[in-house]
């Protein structure tokens, strides 16, 4: 286990500044997820931690030791790549044991550790197979096994589940959570999938244009987003944002309310609009309602709410669930 700390880290590629100035502390044994839209700098930040990119300015400490200029292998990290990065000419056992071989470990020790990791990841029967003979999930497990055997201080994951289908992704997500619980290791995970972020993390770092928008627990980010960006990024479907008179009356520049926090009402409606279409998922129904003068609102109704397209309904935000943002996009009090 180890801590990881970015201190005023800056990264530029030529004239392009990708990470302007990031300071972040990742505690011992935490599962920290970097989340943000494409191009926000989350993968770059992870690669800076791995030592695959040079830090332009600032320092990086792992376990209190300055590793800014250390080579990847000297940092005590292991990384799982989006593409798995398995060596196609080596079998599973050779792939898992490659790091130990490079470290000059005895063959017997390599074999023992490879078998231990394989047992942990249910790869025992696949050790002689080449990566090309494995399924996506098995390949992902081999990539994780390759990281585990090196007993790193910090595990780095770069969108490791993005190449898997939805069902396998869910399964691997659970396996990763269990692995983290079992190893108790510090893990840093990059994803653009907020479901992964919300379910896996005990600390989420939301990034936007190379800057940290907010750091906090998943529910903290969901319940108390500090910026308009975080409010819009965390939560699915995304939060409804309302500007204009409705917001001004509540002394905010933008009024935000999540789809699950809007009730369909017959009296006391704040908005009245026409249901344009609905998505019936069985457990929930998402309604897309066009409100004149306000725009389109997304509403999440519990259960199978059968609405005919074109039907007019009344909507009201649930008490104490709305969010207000000032003209700079910062969270502020909303008077309800």
């Amino acid at each position, binding site marked *: 286990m180890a801590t990881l700390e970015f201190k005023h880290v800056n990264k530029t590629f030529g004239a392009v500044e990708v990470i302007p100035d990031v300071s972040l502390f990742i505690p011992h044994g935490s599962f920290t997820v970097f989340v943000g839209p494409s191009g926000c700098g989350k993968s770059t930040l992870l690669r800076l931690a*791995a*030592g*695959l990119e040079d830090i332009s300015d600032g320092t990086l400490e792992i376990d209190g030791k300055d590793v800014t200029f250390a*080579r*990847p*292998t000297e940092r005590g*990290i*292991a*990384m799982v*790549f*989006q*593409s798995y*990065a398995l*060596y*196609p*000419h080596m079998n599973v056992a050779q792939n898992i044991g*490659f*790091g130990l071989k*490079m*470290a000059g470990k005895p063959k017997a020790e390599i074999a023992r550790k490879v078998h231990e990791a394989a047992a942990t990841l249910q790869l025992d029967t696949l050790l002689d197979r080449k990566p090309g003979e494995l399924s996506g999930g098995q390949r992902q497990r081999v990539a994780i096994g*390759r990281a585990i055997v*090196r007993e790193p201080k910090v595990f780095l994951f770069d969108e490791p589940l993005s190449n898997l289908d939805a069902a396998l992704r869910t399964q691997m997500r659970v396996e990763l959570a269990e692995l983290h619980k079992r190893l108790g290791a510090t893990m840093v995970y990059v994803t653009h999938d907020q479901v992964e972020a919300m379910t896996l993390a005990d600390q989420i770092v939301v990034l936007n244009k190379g800057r940290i928008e907010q750091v906090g627990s998943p529910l903290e980010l969901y319940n108390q987003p500090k910026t308009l960006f975080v409010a819009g990024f965390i939560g699915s479907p995304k939060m409804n944002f309302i500007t204009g008179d409705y917001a001004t009356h509540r002394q905010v520049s933008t009024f935000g309310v999540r789809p699950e926090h809007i009730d369909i009402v017959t009296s006391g409606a704040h908005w009245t609009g026409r249901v344009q279409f609905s998505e019936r998922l069985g457990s929930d129904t998402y309604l897309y309602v066009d409100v004149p003068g306000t725009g389109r609102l997304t509403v999440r109704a519990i259960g199978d709410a059968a609405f005919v397209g074109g039907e007019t309904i009344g909507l009201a935000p649930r008490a104490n669930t709305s969010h207000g943002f000032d003209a700079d996009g910062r969270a502020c009090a909303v008077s309800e």
Partner: protein
Amino acid sequence: MRSDGSLTALMLFLPPAVLLFSLFVIWPIFTAVDLSFYKWNGYGDVTNFVGFDNYGILLKNSIFHQSLFNSFKLLLASIFLQIPLALVLALLLYRKTSANTAFRLIFFAPYILAEIATGLIWSFIFDGDYGVSAMVADKLGSEPFYILADKQWAFWTIITVVVWKYFGYHMMIFIAALQAVPTDLIEAAEIDGASPLKTIWYVKLPMILHAIKLSVLFAITGALQVFDIIIPLTNGGPSNSTHSIVSFLYTFGLARMNVGFGAAVGVVLFILCVGTAFSYKRLAIDKGGQL
């Protein structure tokens, strides 16, 4: 009857291919085999059947033995000098930078030159009377050195020129293969603690093994066919010591109008080429997977 259009494509494209291949490959091979059993000077009817005499003469010919040995030396040089040199340079130059592009162009340039032009350029360089080597000798105040007329060094000079001319071609094959190696794999090896040399050994070389095998196959078949560099450089001399199999065929078969004898040499060369290529394919390529 196949209805997906493939039969139409087959009927349309196969006959011209079969016709051209038969006309320019199959028919000449069979003609060469047939001619090798005759003594024929290229004029008149082919009537003087001599059986295996041409082959008998060939097997006893010491110049042919030397030519075979020279071709073998060229083959070894191509595999053990040319390929490693190309590989080292490819590893140094495969990354996409403007400097690397310039060096690639410089190293690839000899391959673009026509073989005969290459031979003429190098024969001028090595000319002890008027060439570059004459100028160098003059500057150094030493006696002019006629390396192409030296029995001991002439063939080594040819080997040098052949390596110089073709290594760029193999280098480009390796560069293309190296550029196709996923960056993730190199980075994964770096994180796994592999040094740059170990990354080359354990990751890059295995990843481009298919290109290396292909290159070696080209080098083998190319080495057995070296001809038009030798003619302008030494014309097989001094004392017929620098002939390859093909220059031997040309000099003693075609130039002296011994068409039957030349055909016998051609048949031997064909058997050698096909035999070597198939043996190599069976030993190296099929064993290690497909190309």
